[in-house]
């Protein structure tokens, strides 16, 4: 049978799938999905929380206030608005001067020392806390009202993703105190919906999909109670009289009191849309117009602060500030990180915090409001500098073996390392706090190796090696490695284990030892290196 015949036979055997209608959740619908459109609707629902197809009456859209956009900034407004400029997956954190509208990238935007959620949104600085004077690795809704703590989630088991996780933990991290506290564990995903002065609202969904539940968590006590659907602020609840036609809507942000800001309709040029703010059950129509019209107000995100509500345009050319009674003010944006020939429309702005005078001293580009230290924000304690001289001064205590003496190989122990990212071995050799792992057997010629460090030891560690039954040593390559030595300035960030990935290479089989020196301890790990090379697999 030729290949094309088999192809034909297979196709006939499997048959053809039923017709499929692609999902178009942004478009207004005038009827409920049915028949083949079921999948499109199901996927739209699956896109969860952002693209909900809901019923909403025409009255809201038809009740249009006149466009009130004005091009002049308000008097006396001077601050720096933190934003993240996004282009697909590239992110640049910085500030836009108000009223000037000039963007400055922040060269000191870094969050590498802070724990963050597994996977989504975990990659970089996404929120600037003026109270702390630093960037945080989370979105605005997961930051405490006082700006000093934030929420993040950890998928379990370690290194799992949303494809294979079994449970999740919600943590709150106190940045000034560098204190991590587990708030909530659930056998499913945990997503933060809102953190207000009242409570933290999260929702949970089982790993394989299923019932979505809402939970209210008291931030101070950690008390968790299940909430009903009314606790979700991001759902439009039209009155029965309004439920005549259906429109797509989405929440694009919240005001300073946590009130959701909806964009209803729109999504394609010429489509009518409204921007509506809900607070305490009262709806305020911020704007009603048409997508792509001459006004140029086409928001994709919003964030409220003491000044009002900032709206971020789809094409990154404009920012808008809405203030009750004053309407919308437009601020043209310039200075965005564009490459030659790149259209500004390829960028978008993500809100990253309230507009404020910067609160940390730093060398700063001219034109940005002068930095002022925040009197109430204690400085974040920096990790102590590594005192290598103390560690290197310790003698290498690895003892040479007598001729013919057996190699006193370190025992294998079972570990359950809790690591922020990645899958790591669940075994190690040694007595800790540093464990040698990555291989069950060691062969001459070199193999990948892993150090796992118990979170009880956060300080610097010095790892040195020597052969115990002859001359030579283990050559280690990897971060901080130099020949037979590895310097590890920071080993663990509690509650997470520290990790090191590298390679150990012995020129010849034999008995080798590692000496690990850290604050208050010296540890030895002995391994037998067999005749190489290592078998494949």
């Amino acid at each position, binding site marked *: *049978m*030729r*290949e094309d*015949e*088999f*192809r*034909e*036979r*297979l*196709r*006939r*055997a*499997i*048959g053809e*799938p*039923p017709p*499929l209608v*692609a*999902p*178009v*959740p*942004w478009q207004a619908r005038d009827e409920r999905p049915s028949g083949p459109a079921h*999948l499109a609707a*199901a*996927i739209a629902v*699956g*896109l*969860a*929380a*952002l*693209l909900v197809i809901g019923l909403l009456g025409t009255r809201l859209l038809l009740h249009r206030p006149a466009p009130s956009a004005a091009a002049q900034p308000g008097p006396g407004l001077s601050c720096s608005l933190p934003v993240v400029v*996004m*282009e*697909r*997956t590239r992110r640049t954190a910085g500030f836009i001067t108000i009223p000037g509208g000039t963007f400055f990238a922040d060269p000191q935007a870094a969050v590498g020392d802070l724990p963050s959620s597994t*996977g*989504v*949104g975990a*990659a970089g600085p*996404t929120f600037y806390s003026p109270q702390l004077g630093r960037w945080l690795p989370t*979105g*605005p*809704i997961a930051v405490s009202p006082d700006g000093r703590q934030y929420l993040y989630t950890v998928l379990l088991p370690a290194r799992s*993703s*949303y*494809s294979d996780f079994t449970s999740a933990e919600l943590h709150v991290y106190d940045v000034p105190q560098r204190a991590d506290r587990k708030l909530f564990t659930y056998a499913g995903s945990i*997503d*933060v*919906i809102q953190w207000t002065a009242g409570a933290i609202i999260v929702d949970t969904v089982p790993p*394989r*999909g299923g019932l979505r539940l809402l939970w209210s968590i008291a931030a101070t006590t950690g008390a968790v109670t299940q909430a009903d659907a009314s606790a979700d602020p991001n759902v439009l609840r039209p009155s029965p009289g309004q439920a005549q036609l259906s429109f797509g809507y*989405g*929440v*694009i942000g919240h005001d300073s009191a946590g009130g959701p800001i909806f964009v209803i309709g729109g*999504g394609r040029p010429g489509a009518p849309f409204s921007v509506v703010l809900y607070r305490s059950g009262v709806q305020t129509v911020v704007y009603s117009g048409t997508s792509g019209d001459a006004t140029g107000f086409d928001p*994709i*995100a919003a964030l409220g602060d003491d000044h009002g509500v900032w709206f971020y345009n*789809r094409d990154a050319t404009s920012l808008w500030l809405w203030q009750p009674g004053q309407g919308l003010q437009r601020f043209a944006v310039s200075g965005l990180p564009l490459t030659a020939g790149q259209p500004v429309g390829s960028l*978008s702005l*993500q809100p990253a915090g309230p507009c404020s005078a910067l609160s940390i001293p730093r060398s700063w580009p001219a034109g940005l409001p002068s930095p002022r230290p925040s009197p109430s924000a204690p400085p974040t304690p920096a990790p102590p500098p590594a005192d290598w001289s103390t560690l290197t001064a310790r003698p290498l205590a690895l003892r040479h073996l007598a001729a013919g003496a057996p190699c006193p190989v370190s025992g294998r122990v079972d570990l359950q390392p809790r690591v922020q990212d990645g899958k790591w071995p669940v075994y190690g050799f040694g007595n800790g706090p540093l464990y040698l792992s990555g291989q069950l057997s060691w062969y001459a010629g070199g193999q990948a190796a892993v150090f796992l460090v118990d979170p009880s030891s956060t300080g610097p560690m010095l790892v040195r090696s020597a052969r115990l039954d002859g001359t030579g040593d283990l050559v280690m390559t990897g971060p901080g490695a130099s020949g037979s030595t590895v310097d590890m300035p920071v080993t663990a960030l509690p509650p997470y284990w520290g990790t090191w990935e590298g390679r150990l290479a012995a020129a010849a089989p034999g008995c080798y030892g590692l000496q690990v020196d850290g604050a208050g301890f010296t540890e030895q790990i002995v391994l037998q290196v067999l005749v190489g090379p290592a078998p494949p697999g």
Partner: protein
Amino acid sequence: VTGVEVRAADQQWFMEQMALMLPLAQRLAYGMLQNAHECEDALQDAAFKAWRALPRLREGSDVRAWFLTIVANECRQRRRSRWWSTLKMDSPPAAVSNRHGQGLGDEDAIELRRALNRIPSDMKMALVLRYYLDFSFEDMGRVLGVSAAAAKSRTHRALSRLRVEIPEALADA
């Protein structure tokens, strides 16, 4: 996942990509699962997972291969978790002619479908990608996360295994 972590522009882009890729993804899922309802569920879950993973999608990535890989993983997972062995028939396979012009009756089609359900997921995936979706070995490799040569090898192994399952039907294959 929160609304601010996946920007609206990316959502729009994602939805556009989804609209382009869904027919192919549906074909992959249907080929693997051979059940319309399960296929829909798999696609829904895959789309949701893709949306959640969107911020991790690297610039310049092959979006089609990326999404189809998610669909493929979802189908593998669903095949693993199946507890039933009954072959569900959404619609009778159409009659087909072999090279001798003789009709391939329903029984032959059912037998081939059953054989496809008996072989390991990775083998079935290879056959579906190659013969049901007409993928090149290079495209197969991108979805399976292997080289083109490995994809070709996997396809040949799958064919050999299929011959073991239905030696009479594929005796000349």
